[in-house]
């Protein structure tokens, strides 16, 4: 199993009364609350942590979120560019620039090809469906997002892999009549592609396309269900079985010298859930296109209908709407988060056991995307966590080789 370290570079330094008063800490909170001098320090600290990962032999992962306290990584390709030049050894996963929010996928292909060449073939390209606040921040129609997502990926993939001069693209969402990017990517035909999704329909498509499938903070049941949807879709399409190398899981991870130190680190990571998910209803549950209309009775009401409690999972569809998942996550404590398999923390031994326990529950996965710094965790604490994990846990995980489950 490969380990991938990440920090979303949150900006936690907004006064609590401001955060309490706003209906959304993403998209709408005025940027007067973001001090660029503080932001610069954060960028430098986290880039140094990425470089430490390179020294320690741990892969790095750069995400993208827009316009909120949860993340200052609004421009993923810029980070990927820095990492492509400044790291020397490890692989770099962009997870990823939000493709359905950008008007020109060809430009994204160009950015990725540049980073792949600059890093001499160390790039991995991930795609992430956008969240509701990001639809607002990027002025994107939330209806049709998924179709646009797949068309953007198709166009990027073709642009990266095409070698024989300009081709034309006149799709439903994107038109570009002259596509011929320079440089071509280092990896041929293009870097490996990843996709993050929890819903079974998108999971099936990720499976059919043979992409590395990432589950983010979904816990064992949702993760297993999505992996199974991936495998089932491949089987139904007559495609060969894939190994655990096709599956990834993203969770909060912190290893300390003692159980207490590890838990204290884990608790700091939960800031992401408790504080940075707050999102206005118009940007989450009421945003058009984010839930199938059939789920409206569960989602629209502020209280349960007479005689029924709102279901967290829709039995028929097997879907937990992202907004409901967020509400569930916002109230979690350390023990709960650990029990739900979204936080692995403690001593290195304990962290290893928790990860492998989760591994067994979901039927195996080949990549651990670890959120190792968040909230008010300091640079020093983060550095300590990276060193301990990469020296004491990652080597043991690396021994877990890809397998094709029977």
């Amino acid at each position, binding site marked *: 199993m490969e380990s991938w370290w990440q920090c979303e570079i949150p900006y936690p330094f907004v006064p609590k009364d401001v955060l309490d008063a706003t209906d959304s800490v993403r998209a709408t909170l005025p940027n007067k609350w973001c001090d660029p001098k503080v932001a610069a320090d954060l960028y430098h600290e986290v880039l140094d942590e990425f470089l430490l990962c390179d020294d320690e032999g741990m892969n790095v992962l750069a995400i993208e979120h827009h316009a909120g306290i949860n993340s200052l990584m609004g421009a993923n390709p810029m980070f990927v560019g820095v990492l492509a030049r400044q790291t020397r050894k490890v692989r770099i996963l962009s997870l990823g620039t939000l493709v359905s929010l950008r008007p020109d996928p060809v430009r994204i292909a160009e950015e990725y090809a540049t980073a792949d060449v600059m890093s001499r073939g160390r790039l991995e390209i991930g795609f992430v469906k956008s969240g509701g606040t990001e639809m607002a921040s990027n002025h994107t129609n939330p209806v049709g997002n998924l179709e646009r997502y797949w068309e953007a990926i198709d166009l990027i993939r073709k642009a990266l892999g095409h070698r024989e001069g300009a081709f034309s693209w006149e799709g439903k969402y994107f038109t570009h009549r002259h596509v011929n990017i320079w440089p071509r990517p280092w990896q041929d035909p293009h870097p490996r592609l990843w996709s993050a999704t929890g819903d079974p329909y998108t999971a099936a498509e990720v499976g059919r396309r043979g992409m590395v499938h990432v589950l983010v903070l979904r816990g064992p049941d949702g993760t297993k269900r999505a992996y199974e949807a991936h495998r089932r879709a491949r089987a139904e399409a007559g495609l060969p079985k894939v190994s655990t190398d096709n599956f990834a899981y993203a969770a909060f991870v912190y290893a300390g010298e003692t159980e207490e130190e590890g838990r204290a680190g884990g608790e700091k990571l939960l800031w992401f859930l408790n504080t940075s998910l707050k999102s206005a209803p118009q940007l989450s549950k*009421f945003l058009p296109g984010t839930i199938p209309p059939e789920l409206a009775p569960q989602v629209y009401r502020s209280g349960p209908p007479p005689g029924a409690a709102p279901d967290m999972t829709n039995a028929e569809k097997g879907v937990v709407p992202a907004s409901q998942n967020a509400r569930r996550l916002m109230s979690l404590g350390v023990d709960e988060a650990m029990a739900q398999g979204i936080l692995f923390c403690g001593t290195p031994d304990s962290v290893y056991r928790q990860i492998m326990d989760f591994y067994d529950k979901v039927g195996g996965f080949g990549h651990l995307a670890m959120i190792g710094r968040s909230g008010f965790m300091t640079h020093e604490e983060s550095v300590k966590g990276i060193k301990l994990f990469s020296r004491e846990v990652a080597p043991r995980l690396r021994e877990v080789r890809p397998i094709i489950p029977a």
Partner: protein
Amino acid sequence: MPNRTALTDRMTVRDLTLEVLRRGTGQAILALHGLQPIDTDARFLDLLSRQAEIIAPSHPGFGDSPRPADFDTVYDLVHLYLDLLHSLPHERVTLLGFSFGGWLAAEMAAACCHRIDKLVLVDPFGIKLGGREARDILDVFNVHPDTVRDSEWHNPDRFAPDFNAMSDAALVRYARGRDALCLYGFQPYMYNPQLKRWLARIAVPTLVLWGASDGIVSSKYGRAYAGLIPNARFTVIDGAGHHPEIEQADAFADHVASFIG
């Protein structure tokens, strides 16, 4: 708040089957709904249907009208309803458009007035009047639902939908309508940059009605909109927000009835 339920009638235009609400007899009114399909229990229907035959389809994607995957623009809607207009047995009909449906009605009348007897627009969307940093029409997808509610209704406590009280079926319908509205109207937001120029082509008697308390799109916008349509009459209805046909059904029906004679 009455529960919106599926309509029983259907009508077919080319390959599209629409659910349609039909009420009354007399001269025909083709009514194009706004943010949501017209409620079957709406009082203004009873009032108007005493002298008119109302034909009110649900736009594809709204209510129980299916939407083909490649049918996703106002262009599609305008052509659908021009087609529908020509397929009706009536030689001429009154075209009545509310809000988003008012935009469609204005587009249709600007394109071709042959089958339109009279045009009634009620708090219509459709054009851009303010400067590039002024928003004419409240972004109902991007502001807090409480703000939308207070902007939409003069008396929200009495008239705004109560999700907790609505049936499951009504909520599914409502959510479907929101998705469809967003699909059609997101970009540019609820207007066609070219329409303003062509409103001058409208060559039928036109009445523009506006709720005095409309906070979704103001009566000032409405007055200017009416000014772009030759000889249009502009009337404000007090005690009503974006839906004067609901909040002041009697006054609304009186205005329409006297206009269509």
